Structures are given as C-alpha cells and as structure tokens.
C-alpha cells in the first residue's frame, strides 16, 4: 500500500508537465495586471483569493476598461462555474473525508489537477487515500501559480511575446483528453463541446466556457439513452 506522502508526491509529478503552460500563463497574468495599472498587491490578491487564471485576467481587464463590479464578478462566476462539474466528479473520491477537510481540499481544485486526479484514481480504483493525490496536484499547481504570478508582477512579461506561449494553454488541455480519443463516445462529446464553444464564443460573460460543457453533457445523456 502506498503511503500518504507517496500518493501526494505522485500527484505532484503528474502535474509537472503542465507547468509548461501554467508558469508562462501565471507570468502573463501578473504582468497584465500591473500593465493595466493595478496595485501589485491587488494583482497578487487575485491569485490568492480568486486563484483561477483566465478569470483573473478577465476580471482585471473588465475593471480597468470601466465595467461595473457586478459585470466583473458575474464574469468570474460564470468562467469558474466549471469547477462545479469537477467537484461533482471528485466528490466520489472525497466522500469519506470530514467536512473541514472537504472545505480545505476544495480550495485546491484546479483544471489540470482535477483531470490528472480523475485519470489516476479511475485507473487505481482501490487507492486508499485518493484525496492525497488530489492535494498533491492542487498544492503543486497552487505554489507554481503563486510564484509565477509574483514573478510576472515584479519582472513584467519577461517571456518574449513572439514565442506565442499562450498556445501552450490549449495544448495542456489537449494533452489531458488526447487519450480519450480512443473512445468514440468521448470523441462525440468532445466534438459537441468544441463546436458549441466556437458558435457560442461571443455569448455574454464568456459563458461559452460553461454553456458548451452543459450542451455536451446533455448530448452525452441523450447518447446514453439511445444506446440502451
């Protein structure tokens, strides 16, 4: 049986490749905040308090562009609502924890951490302490995110823009789902989500980020119904 620290460490190792996109993205987020004229402390506070890359950038861009607080908060809420889906999936593995532990672990639920945890735990169904894996991924991503936004705040965007490192973001997520391309039902759901996101891209509050998954899950539901 694996010890708790070993499981945690496995989670850490699993998300390390994603640093290729997380670190540049963090640096960009910190640098953009300062460029937009926000107080450095405030920019960092978004990483600590909101802790969600894309939503932090949108939040600061909206406020500096003169949008109301309500619009900025709504956008953050809409973009980050996808975590509800991650929580629904992870709740199966976190069920037995105490309420306090659930509250703590929740703060560390992030896209890549969720995806890697879900993959690993599904392959190792009788893992004794799966929450340590979730924590290992989440805490690692948290530290890297904090450090990279701080360096972006202090040093500015020191990664040359010509490198186009923003492209690493779709690649990270592609790496997460590429294995599921072997399953036709998953491919179908992916295509529904992808095309929905292209069509809904201009919907208000960046809502394509949550509307497309909902449409894709409804499609999945219908597909399961028809299969039976």
């Amino acid at each position, binding site marked *: 049986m694996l010890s708790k620290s070993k499981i945690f460490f496995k989670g850490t190792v699993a998300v390390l490749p994603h640093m290729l996109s997380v670190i540049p993205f963090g640096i960009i987020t910190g640098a953009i905040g300062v460029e937009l004229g926000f107080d450095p402390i405030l920019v960092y506070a978004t990483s600590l308090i909101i802790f969600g890359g894309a939503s932090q950038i949108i939040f600061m861009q909206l406020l500096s562009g003169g949008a109301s607080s309500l619009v900025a908060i709504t956008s*953050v809420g809409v973009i980050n609502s996808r975590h509800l889906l991650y929580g629904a999936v992870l709740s199966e593995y976190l069920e037995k924890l105490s309420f306090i532990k659930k509250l703590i672990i929740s703060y560390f639920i992030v*896209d890549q951490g969720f995806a890697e945890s879900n993959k690993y735990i599904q392959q190792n169904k009788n893992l004794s302490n799966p929450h340590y894996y979730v924590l290992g991924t989440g805490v690692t991503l948290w530290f890297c995110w904090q450090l990279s936004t701080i360096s972006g705040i202090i040093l500015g965007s020191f990664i040359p823009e010509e490198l186009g490192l923003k492209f690493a973001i779709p690649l990270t997520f592609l790496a997460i789902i590429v294995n599921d391309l072997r399953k036709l039902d998953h491919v179908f759901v992916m295509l529904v*989500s*992808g095309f929905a*996101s*292209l069509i809904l891209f201009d919907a208000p509050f960046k809502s394509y980020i949550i509307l497309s998954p909902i449409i894709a899950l409804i499609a999945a539901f219908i597909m399961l119904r028809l299969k039976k």
Partner: protein
Amino acid sequence: MTWISIIISGIVTYFSRMAMVALIDREMLGTKVKEVLNYVPAAVFPAIIFPGVFFNDFGIIVEITDPKIYGAIVALVVGFYSRSVIATIVSGLLSYWFIIFFLLR
C-alpha cells in the same frame, strides 16, 4: 471597491469549487447523472481547446493556414500515440515555433 470585488469573486469561485464536494450528498445524484459525469473532461476541455486554436487574440476565427492549427494536429497525433502529456505539449509547441520562426520567415 476593487478589493470588495476581488473578495466577492473569490467567494463565488471558492463556492463553485466547494459546493459539490462539501454540500451535496452523492446519494442525491442518480445513477444516470453519475454515468454522465464520466464525460466531464470530454465536455469541459474542448471548450477551452477549440477557441484557443481556432480564434486569434481578437476573437476572430483564424484561417485554415494558421500555424496553431498545424501545431495542434501534431500535438494530437504525438499525444495519441505516445500517451504522454509532456510529449503532447512539447511537440505542439516545437512544431508551432518551427512554422512561425522558420517557415514564415
């Protein structure tokens, strides 16, 4: 005012992370819902990938010759056969850089 907005945004975001883990009893979810939850990664991530590849910084759809499309195809093929996260990302970035720095110069 900005501080209050950050704190409220933080609370909203934290709630979205915590609600399903701490407040919902799994017994409340039917078997059908649980089955559909298997598709969460397939349903969420393409909505980040597709716009990231097919739209430019100004939210305009890119042309079929855009380097990002070819980078994504290379990453897809390499990822599919290697099953490695790092190989997927690196191959995508390298092929993208090869196009923008060598072929388009």
